[in-house]
């Protein structure tokens, strides 16, 4: 018992600097409320975790373990998931939950499982989806229904915005800057815009809305 207590205390100080820790991602649990109140932007409670595929039985085992974890925990975290292989050789674990907390806890479980098996470097990004709340009476806001994303880069452990414009591989930089203006102080933020890499064609449509 003392051991576990010490461990927990230690987490507060020295372990915080642990370079494999993704606890910064949990800042989203308060930031999403800010997005909602200030921008009217709600979490769709959908997220995609993008992992670089590896050929080999050990990696396949790991993914099976992840699926098992998600299956067992789905009742507890109220999540559902879909696995999608994209054209660029990446595996997407698409999650949908009842709340931001649910998908964060689930995604953290996934990341832990993968890291334990030694595949942490294969983790590329976790992408969280948001949409504007529109009152049913307004007609002009239809373009605002486009999803806006926050990308968490597992290598840099920071968030950045990504708002695609339609399907033509263009970005809404004004909306991205607006996102930045609202939450860059609340979550670990990627100040270097040169690494705000987009992710086109994410398989969010494979999940229910």
């Amino acid at each position, binding site marked *: 018992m003392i051991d576990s207590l010490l461990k927990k205390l230690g987490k507060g100080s020295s372990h915080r600097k642990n370079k494999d820790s993704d606890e910064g991602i949990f800042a989203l649990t308060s930031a999403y409320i800010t997005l909602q109140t200030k921008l009217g932007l709600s979490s769709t409670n959908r997220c995609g975790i993008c992992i670089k595929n590896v050929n080999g039985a050990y990696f396949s085992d790991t993914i099976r373990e992840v699926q098992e974890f998600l299956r067992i925990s789905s009742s507890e975290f109220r999540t559902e998931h879909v696995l999608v292989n994209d054209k660029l050789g990446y595996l997407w674990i698409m999650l949908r939950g009842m709340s931001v907390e649910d998908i964060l806890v689930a995604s953290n479980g996934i990341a832990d499982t993968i890291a334990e098996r030694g595949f942490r470097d294969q983790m590329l990004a976790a992408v969280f989806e948001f949409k504007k709340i529109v009152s049913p009476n307004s007609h002009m806001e239809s373009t605002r229904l486009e999803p806006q994303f926050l990308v968490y880069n597992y290598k840099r452990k920071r968030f950045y915005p990504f708002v695609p414009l339609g399907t033509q591989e263009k970005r809404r930089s004004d909306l991205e*800057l607006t996102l930045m203006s609202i939450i860059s102080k609340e979550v670990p933020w990627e100040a270097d815009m040169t690494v705000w890499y987009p992710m086109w064609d994410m398989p969010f449509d494979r999940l229910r809305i």
Partner: protein
Amino acid sequence: MSRAWQRRDTGLTLRMITSFMILTVLYLVFLGVLVYLGVGFIPVTVVALVLIISQWYFSDKIVLWSSGAKVVTREQYPELHGLVERIIARNNLPKPKIAVINSKVPNAFATGKSKRSSVVAVTTGLMDILNSEELEGVIGHELSHIMNRDVLVITLASLFSTVAWYMMQFGFFGGLYGGGMGGYGGGRDRGGGGGAILIMLAVAAITWLVSFLVIRAISRYREFAADRGSAQMTGKPVQLANALMKISGTMQRVPNQDLRKVEGLNAFFIIPVNSGRQTIANLFSTHPPVQMRVQKLLEMEASMA
């Protein structure tokens, strides 16, 4: 006086600064000659004031001429006129003249002695790269310069520097003659005078440098003020931030290539932000770094949300 709009565009700014520098040097030489000829303190002061006031009076003409800006009518640029009219109608401002500079470099400036006789000029390059909301932000910034009477402020600030310079010169000749009449004997007289010249030159140089830096500092502060004014006029500071990033080329550095395609390219090493390098350049700059302005604009955006 120019309100050239951003730091990176050296061409337009240089042209206008050069024009005004040549004028200033001409004044100084002229005043120096007057002083040298033994014209008294008060007449020289009057002449200096007349010169400075006329420079201020003709400043818009000089700026338009030196930048190559042409005043355009509503028929020539209906959209630009419409955009300016929308902002001034919302904020109850007098309409400025609108000028266009045929240049690919995105830039804008405002000039004019009074709120009524002012000119807002934009380059064709600016209209090419900005959408109408961003352009509105930029024009709001220029209109704020007019509303804040920044041309007058900067002219007055320069006036102090000119007057300081002129008094240095006056004191220099006065001091030289005074010293010459003092107790020194013939041969040493010249040596003492030479020392005085050196000291006077040094003091004059320092005066000029300090006032130069002060003018830059005031000017930088007025840029922030104009950004804030634009944010209030348009209610969309993020659009001006967006425009600033496009103009400065920062936006072009936001990648369009997919994260999955660059994953192997060592793109993710955390490079320490290079902060020390810009400070010296900042001292001499009339505009604060774009990053700082964008940051302030985004703070305004956040507080408006």
